[in-house]
């Protein structure tokens, strides 16, 4: 079985971003960029399925500017076999990303597509589900466990009330939650090896997909800041303040 994994280049999760003074976006000049943490988990899951002999090839795809080749190389250093970059400098809606991925699915015919459940920049949580609707595939979102059994995939999902397990026909879509696995670190020799793995570059036009945005960002502003509070000296003082000052207990 072939596995397709999509990865996104985003700001590193440790960075506290700042809004640009002119309100047009967040300042990404000179900040560390990295693979979206959920995408890393997706790559790891694909590679593990290959190591278990369930998958025979892991293909990684990223859509974005030239720099996202870095994340594709990282995925290959982690064990993916080859990469596809769809190059665009435009910021894409999740719908456009899903449409491009649907074309890649059509070409590659994977048995399983693994994506992160959300990217930590736009926090949309949409792409995997949209890809499901566009390709007619079933989905197991927010996965904390994935098992292939008898020609189907069983996915345990983290839902608001606890855990839910579904059985999906293949081909299927899985989106990863944080507890699915703990991604490995790529070793230097593996980074060197990854440089020799094939990476195909395409453009949205190659797929004939209209990527014009449906959503326009009018303004980006910082959230309301909280007033700094006080340090209390004791539990007594804390309880007194909560009762008489904040009046919340």
């Amino acid at each position, binding site marked *: 079985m072939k596995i397709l994994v999509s990865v996104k280049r985003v700001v590193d999760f440790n960075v506290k971003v700042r809004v640009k003074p002119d309100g047009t976006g967040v300042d990404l000049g000179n900040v560390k960029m990295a693979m979206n943490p959920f995408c890393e988990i997706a790559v790891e899951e694909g590679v593990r399925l290959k190591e278990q002999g369930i998958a025979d090839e892991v293909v990684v795809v990223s859509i974005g500017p030239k720099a996202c080749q870095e994340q594709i190389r990282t995925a290959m250093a982690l064990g993916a076999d080859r990469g596809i970059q769809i190059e665009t400098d435009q910021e894409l809606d999740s*719908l456009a990303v899903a449409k491009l991925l649907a074309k890649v699915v059509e070409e590659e015919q994977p048995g399983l597509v693994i994506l992160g459940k959300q990217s930590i920049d736009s926090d949309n949580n949409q*792409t995997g589900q949209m890809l*499901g609707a566009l390709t007619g595939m079933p989905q197991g979102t927010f996965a*904390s466990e994935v098992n292939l059994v008898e020609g189907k995939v069983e996915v345990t999902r983290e*839902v608001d009330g606890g855990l*839910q397990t579904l059985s999906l026909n293949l081909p299927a879509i899985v989106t990863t939650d944080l507890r699915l696995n703990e991604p490995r670190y790529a070793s230097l020799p593996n980074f060197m090896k990854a440089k020799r793995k094939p990476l195909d570059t395409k453009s949205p036009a190659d797929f004939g997909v209209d990527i014009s945005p449906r959503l326009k960002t009018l303004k980006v502003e910082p*959230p309301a800041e909280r007033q700094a509070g006080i340090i209390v000296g004791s539990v007594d003082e804390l309880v007194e303040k909560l009762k008489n000052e904040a009046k*919340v207990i």
Partner: protein
Amino acid sequence: MRILVIAEHDNVTLKGATLNTVTAAAQLGDDVDLLVVGDNCGGAAEAAAKISGVSKVLVADNAAYSHKLAENLGSLVTELASGYSHVLAPATSTGKNFMPRVAAALDVAQISDIIAVESADTFKRPIYAGNAIATVQSSDSVKVITVRTTGFDAAATDGSAAVESLDKVTDAGISAFVKEELAQSDRPELTSAKVIVSGGRGMGNGENFSMLEQVADKLGAAVGASRAAVDAGFVPNDMQVGQTGKIVAPELYIAVGISGAIQHLAGMKDSKVIVAINKDEEAPIFQVADYGLVADLFDAVPELERQL
């Protein structure tokens, strides 16, 4: 403007998130229909009819909808959507699961997690773990929206809408329910609790969470956790608060042994009053806390419980 809201429920009762979503819908226009999709969901439909501001309750009651499979829910809502200018669902794990399928099937973008309605096509939503708020405008014919419930008050429940049943059944037959393990608790739900006591890695183990439960019992509070506490296996995943867990905004949030990482703050910093108990005075949680107590939690929490 005709607005369709998809109700969140467990067949018997309606979840509070539905009420906040109706409030968001009412800001868009006054023709709001509510869709209850489930299996033996008469109880939920009855409760839905009482929500003020709802014109009509549509009920799709069928075994195909018993476990809210995204494929089946998605295609039903897609079929119904054409008559509406807006389709809204709460940004719960159910709403997040099926709504993007609806959007893609309609060939429209989705606007996730809105916290404010600016106009019929313009909305505010947090990005970058809540470190920025974007105002976005949609040019699509149908707006598919998930609603962050902490951004909107709950609608009142003194209405009496007409109830209409739908006989349309959409069963894609490509996914099936296997099992579920749902947390059983007599405490209020995290997302609607007025008070939350949360524990982090500093709790040390799962047994120590009983200290927080005792405080919670006295305050009528829910118990939450950081990701580190969930990952370490102290408590189950449904207790996680944060960017990728539950978003909460109670009257009082007490963070115990939680450092205050960006991703945790993203889920609780809109709480009215925040208390932090941490032995490290440098912990970032103190920067958002109204009342900070620098102390060992194993001394402070039992003491707090005694004083309540």
